């Protein structure tokens, strides 16, 4: 069965972004594969969200490590899509919990997805950057040109 996305969630997904981060929305070609949305499962929600942007960061507005991650990407010239989980009253908590389960650590944020795939938290991002694997990944996801 195919479910349409409910209008409430649709508004949340709006790419014109929330807050003081003017991150542009970068459409991904494979985005169109994900048409099934199950509203109950937050992980599915997450999957849907991350598929829609090249770089997706789940963060909390009060978390300063999230700020560091955001600065890192913007310093590289990448414009990630940021979802502030504390700003979304309904689904935020669930997604946060889902992320905790996903990551296996107590820190739910920041979590970075590049090209729909989970990269990880700050240390993973940093590690891949130092290793020199981050930039190719970003380029492949279309988040970086040159």
């Amino acid at each position, binding site marked *: 069965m195919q479910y349409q996305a409910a209008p409430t969630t649709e508004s949340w997904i709006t790419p014109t972004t929330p807050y003081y981060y003017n991150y542009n929305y970068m459409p991904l070609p494979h985005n169109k594969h994900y048409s099934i949305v199950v509203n109950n499962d937050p992980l599915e929600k997450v999957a849907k969200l991350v598929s829609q942007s090249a770089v997706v960061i789940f963060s909390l507005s009060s*978390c300063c490590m999230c700020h*560091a991650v955001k600065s890192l990407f913007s310093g590289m010239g990448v414009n990630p899509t940021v979802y502030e989980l504390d700003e979304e009253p309904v689904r935020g908590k669930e997604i946060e919990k889902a992320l905790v389960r996903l990551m296996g650590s107590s820190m739910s944020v920041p979590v970075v997805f590049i090209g729909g795939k989970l990269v990880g938290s700050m240390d993973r991002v940093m590690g891949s950057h130092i290793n020199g694997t981050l930039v190719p990944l970003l380029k492949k996801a279309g988040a970086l040109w040159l």
Partner: protein
Amino acid sequence: MASHRVGETGLSDSGPSHHHHHHQHMPYSVLPAYNPPNTGFINQESSSFNFGELEEAIVLQGYKINNDENKLPLYTTVPRPAATLDMFPSWPIRVHQTPRGSNSSTDSGSAVNVAIASKPEAHCHTEPESPISSNSRKTLSEQQLQQQQQHQEIFRQQLQHLQIPEQLEMESEGGSPVTTGGSSHSQQTPKPFSEKRKGIGSTSERTLDAKTLRRLAQNREAARKSRLRKKAYVQQLESSRIRLTQLEQDLQRARSQGLFMCGGAGGGNLSPSAAMFDMEYARWLNEDQRHMAELRKGLQSHLSDSDLRVIVDSFVAHYDEIFRLKSVVAKSDVFHLFTGMWATPAERCFLWMGGFRPSELIKMLAIQLDPLTEQQVVGIYSLQQSSQQTEEALTQGLDQLHQSLVDTIASGSVNDGVHHMAVAVGKLTNLEGFVHQADNLRRMTLHRLHRILTVRQAAKCFLVISEYYGRLRALSNLWASRPREAVMSDENSCQTTTDLQMVQSSQIQFSNFG
């Protein structure tokens, strides 16, 4: 008494010569506890001199004493008349001036006086020793006897006034002394003793009258008390000595654990985990030296690559170790790590997030590791760039933390103060995350370097790194020990030469980077 007066007149007749003798003997009255060396029986005694027993022995056994009065001081001073006053009752003095047996009790008395003088304890000094039974001193001349009697009188008079005058006029004493018997109920101790000398002269050799017995008993008592006092004092000394050694041990232990000083920082504020980290860091520095030496030796001896690889790998593990230690201490005492209290002041000055700045290190290394392939150059350059970006990101994250902390602390109202402080404390826990990420960055940078470079280059690279930080630490020490001019503001040239000399003469061996 009549005899005494006779004696006096006799003395007064032989004035000048007697004066002379008298002056010879004068000083002992002013001597404090003089210990005459030439009395035989004194030397035989041990330090715990028991006068009571001595007296008895002398009385009972008829001890013969050499008659060396001319050399012996006759009198001792009265060290503490008050103390000894307690021990001796007042005696009515009856003076018996019998030159009987011409073994004057004075001689023996004087000898024993001397004996008593030899003992350092004050309260026993002036014990009247004198029931020395008259041992025959047939050798005494009448004049000597008279002299000694005169001396006794002088002494008694001195004691009577509780003074020890510098000079005594023999003639002036003419009238007083013999009658001291009656006047001296407030007895000063040597009085009874001097009196007793005469008294002994009056007793027969083997008779012990009641007075003598009582005196002996008192002497015994005094001697016993003084022995007990001495034992108590010695025990007290021993126990405090033991306590002192224990305290010293505790202090040593505490100092090694809690007061480890890095660069002269105040040692008292260290938390136990910080102190432990400091100790482990010191050990790590020693290990560092060892690894450096091994690397240097390996490079110079042109080991095979595989052998060198082992050494380099151990070096990398060595650095991993310090990062692990830092992560441990970050959990308990993040401020210690962050403010760099474990590092030398020079390092602390250029500290970034509790350690070195990786991009700076790579910049320094790029110059030192000159023969690099194109690919390596590209790799190192990109590594430098990525580490720089990450450093920037972390710094910005820290800035945001700082900002939010400032807001929290500043905005706490009166009512809400506690809550705001709790929130601030919660925010501070993020600090550990930043230090953790910074150390991660450092570790990963080193690993990446290890992978980019060949084994030989990597060996050289790590050697350079260790040498560099060693020099930075040495710079701290040099700076701390430089001569600080207090007054010479106009002698700047002097100052520079002093600096140069100091640097040249320092023991720090800087090896070449290569």
